[in-house]
């Protein structure tokens, strides 16, 4: 069971999608139920990972490692550790929630919609669990196409532009990453004489500094676009605003995490020296992202693009915490990935609910909704506060740890980042005030109906998580601690090792790459 569990979790959604292909387009109810049941079962099975996870080891767990394409040295190698465990759970949870949230809002071509979502889920899970560079790249690209369809078919007015922009931006990064992967593969072959894509063995590979810089740039670019970090963020607002609610939830909740996860899993441990070199530049970009995202969010007229820009700011936090490369900062960063998935996912769901009722998202079209939809307003309030980072909610724990970690790195960075939190409070609360309070003057708004049972069920799990992480984050932090510690130790050791032996910097000097002796 332990060996098969990751395969089951990853491919169950695809299996469900295949079943959907046999249902006729007219059987809308059956299609929705099948899709939801598939996603729910996937989530339930994935909780097995949580309950059977050994929190006292940094080793990969639930590992499966079978040869796949022998001629290229590609293995079917899956596994989770403390870093990826919660991202897997987040993915399975958010997919189930977003299917439930699309129950009534998607009426056209339901089958295609559900099939896309389920295949997307397989792609996302695959990215988080694969421990083979080739396999990772395949999943990384596979998830692009269903997302492209989700935005392009079921999106808003400018959906085609947004969809193509999304694909081209992501492809730009990932194609350069492909070249870097192939180059690494060749470097590893020259060093060890074996063609292999096994990720863990790359951690021990001593790559000359010049080559490290180039490879780091190629990998980092792919991840930075995905995160997205300033100035590569321009695809994000377009994609978010045009995407259907479920698409936005998945996009913000999971897809962006692939960038930050990629940094943790690939960029930092594989190229520690290059990371050291580029870190100040990246940290400044993250800080610009925090401030810029917040300022732009403040002036948005559309609630959805406000949330989209707030994502740019929040992801900046995740990045800066990671760059500190200390225990607290990294734990905060990983926790904040989850928090952002939960809070921003919930915000997009809320925006979707109100859009479904009013067919507008402009802030000025609302006002005084609190009195008309009290339950909705309460949920909205909790999520807004969690997004700001009020103590007692998840956002506080994550941001506090990140700030502590950043303080250890550089005090100026920490001060600037803190300013970002204040700005976040400004734009979120101001938006909330304009939408929810004041007089309910518009007649359309007075007739709004409060959220129904399905919508409550959609939001409830996220609200529970907001308080759980906010009040008792220990299980989360404990589970990720050994892996984070191991990552830091490994990276520092490799960095020291390389600078000690100071391989002369001659650009592409492939032949000098060697394996670190145990």
């Amino acid at each position, binding site marked *: 069971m332990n060996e098969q569990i990751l395969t089951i979790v990853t491919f169950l959604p695809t299996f469900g999608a295949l079943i959907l292909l046999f249902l006729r387009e007219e059987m809308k109810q059956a299609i929705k139920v099948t899709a939801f049941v598939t996603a729910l079962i996937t989530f339930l099975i994935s909780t097995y990972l949580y309950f059977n996870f050994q929190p006292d080891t940094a080793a990969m767990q639930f590992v499966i490692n079978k040869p*796949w*394409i*022998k*001629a*290229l040295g590609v293995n079917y190698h899956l596994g989770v550790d403390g870093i990826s465990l919660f991202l897997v759970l987040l993915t399975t949870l958010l997919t189930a929630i977003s299917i439930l949230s699309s129950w009534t809002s998607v009426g056209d*071509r339901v089958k*295609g919609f559900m099939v896309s979502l389920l295949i997307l889920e397989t792609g996302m899970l695959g990215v988080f669990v694969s421990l083979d560079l080739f396999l990772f*790249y*395949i999943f990384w*690209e*596979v998830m*692009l*196409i269903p997302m*492209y*369809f989700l935005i*392009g*078919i079921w999106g808003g007015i400018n*959906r*085609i532009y947004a*969809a*193509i922009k999304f*694909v*081209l931006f992501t*492809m*730009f990064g990932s*194609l*350069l990453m*492909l*070249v870097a992967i*192939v*180059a690494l*593969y*060749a470097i590893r*072959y020259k060093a060890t004489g074996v063609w292999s894509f096994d990720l863990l063995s790359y951690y021990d590979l001593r790559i000359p500094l010049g080559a490290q810089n180039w490879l780091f740039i190629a990998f980092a670019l792919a991840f930075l676009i995905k995160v997205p970090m300033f100035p590569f963020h321009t695809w994000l607002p377009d994609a978010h605003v045009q995407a259907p609610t479920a698409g936005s939830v998945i996009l913000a909740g999971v897809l962006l995490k692939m960038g930050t996860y990629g940094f943790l899993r690939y960029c930092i441990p594989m190229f520690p020296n290059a990371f050291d070199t580029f870190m100040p530049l990246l940290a400044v970009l993250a800080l610009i992202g925090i401030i810029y995202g917040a300022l732009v969010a403040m002036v948005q007229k559309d609630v959805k693009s406000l949330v989209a820009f707030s994502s740019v700011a929040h992801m900046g936090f995740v990045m800066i915490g990671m760059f500190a490369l200390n225990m607290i900062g990294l734990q905060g960063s990983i926790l904040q990935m989850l928090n952002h998935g939960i809070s921003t996912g919930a915000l997009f769901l809320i925006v979707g609910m109100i859009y479904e009722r009013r067919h507008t998202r402009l802030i000025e079209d609302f006002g005084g909704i609190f009195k008309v939809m009290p339950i909705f307003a309460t949920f909205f309030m909790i999520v807004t506060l969690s997004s700001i980072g009020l103590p007692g909610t998840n956002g506080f724990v994550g941001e506090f740890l990140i700030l502590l970690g950043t303080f250890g790195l550089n005090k100026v960075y920490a001060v600037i980042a803190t300013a970002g939190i204040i700005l976040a409070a400004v734009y979120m609360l101001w938006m909330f005030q304009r939408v929810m309070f004041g007089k309910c003057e518009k007649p359309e708004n007075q007739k709004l109906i409060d959220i129904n049972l399905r919508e409550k069920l959609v939001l409830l799990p996220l609200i529970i998580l907001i308080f759980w992480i906010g009040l008792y984050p220990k299980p989360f932090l404990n589970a990720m601690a050994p892996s984070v510690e191991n990552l830091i130790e490994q990276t520092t050791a490799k960095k020291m090792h390389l600078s000690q032996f100071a391989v002369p910097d001659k650009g*592409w000097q*492939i032949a000098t790459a060697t394996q670190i002796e145990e």
Partner: protein
Amino acid sequence: MNFPNVDFALLSPSLIVCITALLTMLLVPFLGEKRQAVVAHLSWIGLSIALVAVSQQIGKNITTFGGMFLGDDFSQFFNGIFIVAAMLTIFTSIDYLRRKDNEHGEYYPLILFATYGMMVMASSSNLLVIFLGLEIMSVSLYVLAGFARTELKSTEAAIKYFLLGAFATGFTVFGIAFVYGVTGTFDVAGIINAAFGQSNVDTFLIIGGALLLIGFGFKVAAVPFHMWAPDAYEGAPSPITGFMSAGPKAAAFAAMLRIFSVGFGGTVPHLQTLFWILAVVTMTIGNIMAIRQNSIKRMLAFSSIAHAGYILIALVVGSGEASSAAALYLLAYALTNLGAFMVIALVDSGTKHDEFTSIDTYTGLARKRPYLGLALTLFMLSLAGFPPTAGFMGKFVLFKAAVSQGFYILVVIAVLNSLVSVFYYLRVVVKMFMTEPDGQPIEIPAVPVFLMVALAFAVAAVLLIGVYPQGWFNFAGLTILGAN
């Protein structure tokens, strides 16, 4: 007179194709106008027997006719591509010709003759024999390109293809003459003997190589010898366009790999620089021009030019690994493009005349025919090189071969080019899935049985090579050139 010892088992695949072609050609006049499809069925049966014969020859690596005819795995791999391409084309054509009111039995023997020519091309390292195969293939294709004789565009395609093709043939012959003049032999091995290890390679040998490059550059539609391709691709009947992009391209590359990677390989650095430039220019111009096209056939013509540019990377690298990567790439490309042209032929056959090739025709196609739309999407993604499709595997092995020899800049240019290509391939997907037709949508005929079989085969093959390519690697790994 002593007749050389001929190994007929080795010849059997090409002989079967040739004999089937002759027999069916003779049969055509005896069949009534309504029963011309019989020729089609006989043709694909003959081809499938030839395919079995090919499979019997794998791993034997022997030669016959005094070394003029090779039976190495490299040629068997390509023979397989040609035969499958011809079969898929025949399956696509049966209903297409009927709907276009152009059912003439000669069509099928011509495809078989072209296939025979390709098989000869891929099975020899003798320049003269390669030339013979080239001509058998080309002449048949000239006729096929103009097969829709009542259509102006088809006639135009045939005339352009023929005139420029004949011109290019002149270069090929001239090149062969120069090489013969220097080396005194037609065999590729002679080039190695004449050039290897010498500090000053004979100028005439280099001129000969460059002339051969022009001749073959025309056949694979490398820039700047590509001008014929868009018109010929657009005017030819849709199934033939698919065939042209799959078979002859693979055959010409097979011959080029033999001549340049083995013959000139590593001996003439000038040619490597030339190939480098040719590869970059070809892929870039092909991709940029493809963006502006409104006809899907023209777009795929430019895309085929771009793909020729990617494959030229193998000739720049020149290693054995690169040629086997090119072989896999050509297989993936052939299957994908044939699949795409099956859908195009089906849409095209909705009318008697050829106005159904604009990309706008595909507006909203997926709503009415979702599976057809998905199939074409899969082929577009494979052409763009998305995993897990055959197109990705082909690109990956090609890039790996180039990177392991240190050609980083070339590979970076190639991936940036494939980024450009994503844009125009996805345009078709956008039309099919994300837009609604303004007026009355066009009628697309139901998928006939044979086309269904061919389409299912193409989809399965593209996915299979993408998801589990191990078997193909075992085979393609054997095809590494240079061992002979």
